[in-house]
């Protein structure tokens, strides 16, 4: 009896300790590849090739090379512009649609709502083939307009769906008060409702921007020189035989900065967004 109890007491003390160790272990494994990328960006190619993974004497050489590479800088600018514009369009158009779906009763409403969800599930490779032919015909290939349109195509359905629960949770009192005061539907939406749901809009914007920032397939197929985005440029740095790992990882690290900042600062919203909208890989 007595030994049984002391075993129990020992377990009570030991288990939290074990959980701590296991958590640290999981975290270490999970972050190790990221560490490798970030540290490799501060190495010279020759050191990566010749001195193995654990040699670390930081230098800014690779960053200097990448940041003086005009093609990469252009692609970085393109990524930023495409991300911001496609996010803005998706938020405006998407939040209007989401508002329409949460605030009005009409025929086919549920079908339309489900259709938006269905759109989110369309594989990009299935769309990129017709888009390539269409863009060729419309002279939109390798233009920023074209790639913005392509990104809007996956961001609008996403934004509509992400916003539904956020919008539905807002009480109608303010809007109704405004209507009583004689505001038009348009004014009610932009002046009263839009500011009320700003937390939801922030989450949706962040996700839309990240998806655009991370997107590769459309950019690979639909752009070549002028409208090339950064993920494609990074892939382009990967030569056939001897990859320039220093530059590649430096460029990769630069691309990861917004991702890290956003993920870590907006963490509690991100989880909410992840759950309500799901995510795209």
């Amino acid at each position: 009896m007595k030994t049984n109890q002391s075993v129990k007491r020992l377990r009570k003390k030991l288990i939290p300790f074990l959980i701590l160790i296991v958590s640290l272990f999981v975290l270490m494994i999970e972050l190790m590849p990221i560490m490798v990328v970030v540290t490799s960006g501060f190495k010279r190619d020759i050191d990566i090739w010749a001195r193995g993974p654990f040699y670390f004497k930081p230098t800014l050489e690779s960053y200097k090379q990448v940041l003086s590479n005009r093609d990469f800088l252009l692609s970085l600018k393109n990524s930023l512009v495409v991300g911001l514009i496609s996010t803005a369009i998706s938020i405006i158009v998407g939040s209007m649609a989401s508002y329409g779906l949460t605030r009005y009763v009409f025929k086919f409403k549920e079908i339309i709502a489900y259709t938006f969800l269905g759109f989110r599930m369309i594989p990009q490779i299935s769309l990129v083939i017709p888009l390539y032919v269409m863009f060729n015909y419309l002279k939109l290939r390798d233009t920023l307009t074209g790639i913005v349109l392509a990104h809007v195509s996956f961001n609008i359905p996403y934004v509509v769906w992400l916003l539904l629960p956020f919008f539905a949770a807002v009480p109608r009192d303010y809007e109704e008060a405004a209507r009583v005061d004689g505001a038009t539907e348009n004014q009610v939406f932009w002046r009263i409702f839009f500011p009320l749901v700003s937390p939801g809009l922030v989450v949706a914007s962040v996700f839309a921007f990240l998806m655009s920032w991370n997107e590769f397939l459309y950019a690979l197929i639909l752009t070549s020189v002028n409208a090339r985005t950064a993920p494609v440029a990074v892939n382009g740095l990967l030569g056939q035989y001897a990859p320039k790992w220093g530059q590649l990882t430096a460029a990769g690290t630069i691309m990861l900065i917004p991702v890290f900042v956003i993920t870590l600062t907006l963490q509690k919203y991100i989880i909410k967004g992840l759950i309500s909208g799901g995510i795209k890989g």
Partner: protein
Amino acid sequence: MNSTSLSGSKKVKNFGGASPHWFFLTPALVIVFAILIFPVIYSLYMSTFDWHLFYSAERKFIGLGNFFQLFKDREFLHSLWLQFGFVVIALPIETVIGFFVALLLNRDGKFYAVVRSLLLLPVFILPVISGLTWRLLLQPEYGMVSFFLEKLGFGIKAWLAEPDFAYGMVIVQDVWRMWPFMFMFIYAGLTGLPREIIEAAEIDGASFWTKVFKVILPQLRPTIATAFLLRLVDALRIFSEVYVMTGGGPGNATMLLSLYINKQAFEFFNIGYAASMGVVLLILALFLSFFIVRGNVKFEGERG
């Protein structure tokens, strides 16, 4: 629980003449028609032609010919098989790891909050960077994973040039990046469970495994099912990370579906044929999405 807010809205008096809901919905519907619905219809149209990208004038209508061709295309069947294996191996592993880590980290305290948020990082990393990272880690002479493999006595090999190993590593890459997605979903579900149920089981003297299988798992089933289906749809269209990591090779050992479609369309320029494969993939994805919608768990967050 279900779509209360979708059907529970009140009728609002019309102020601007035309029905206001169309005013709000039309811009999205117009754009979506132009760059989603129309391309889908167009790809259906394309899939009925023998159509070469650079000889568009010579395209020939062949009806369902492309689709019959698919069943005879060994490379396509191979891609389908690889895709199937990928889903069947990677997703259960991600779910199980996600589930147990969620149990593990379901504790109060600053430390665990920090661990939870740091674990989310890989999910948001660019797929391209992820593929690049694993390619670097597996470099035979200087990659970190290779370093440890060598220490374990496997010798130095060009790992990504070995078909089975490359395929395995594509899966490892995906598990590394996406189990935290399952974790976050399941963790959110876990914190939503009423504590009394678990505490009641503990008072009854239930063991850890009884608690997990008899109490927690049944309660979390809808959450896990939704997360799993969402992952499934995404796993079906995996492209960037594999493209960067192995390019589908060696040979076609990692030529998953999207990569093969891309190859047919933009390396061989058989866009009619590629479109027909795109249609098959699309139908597969929409079929699975149907179950997500029918499960109706997506609406849970809505309170009318």
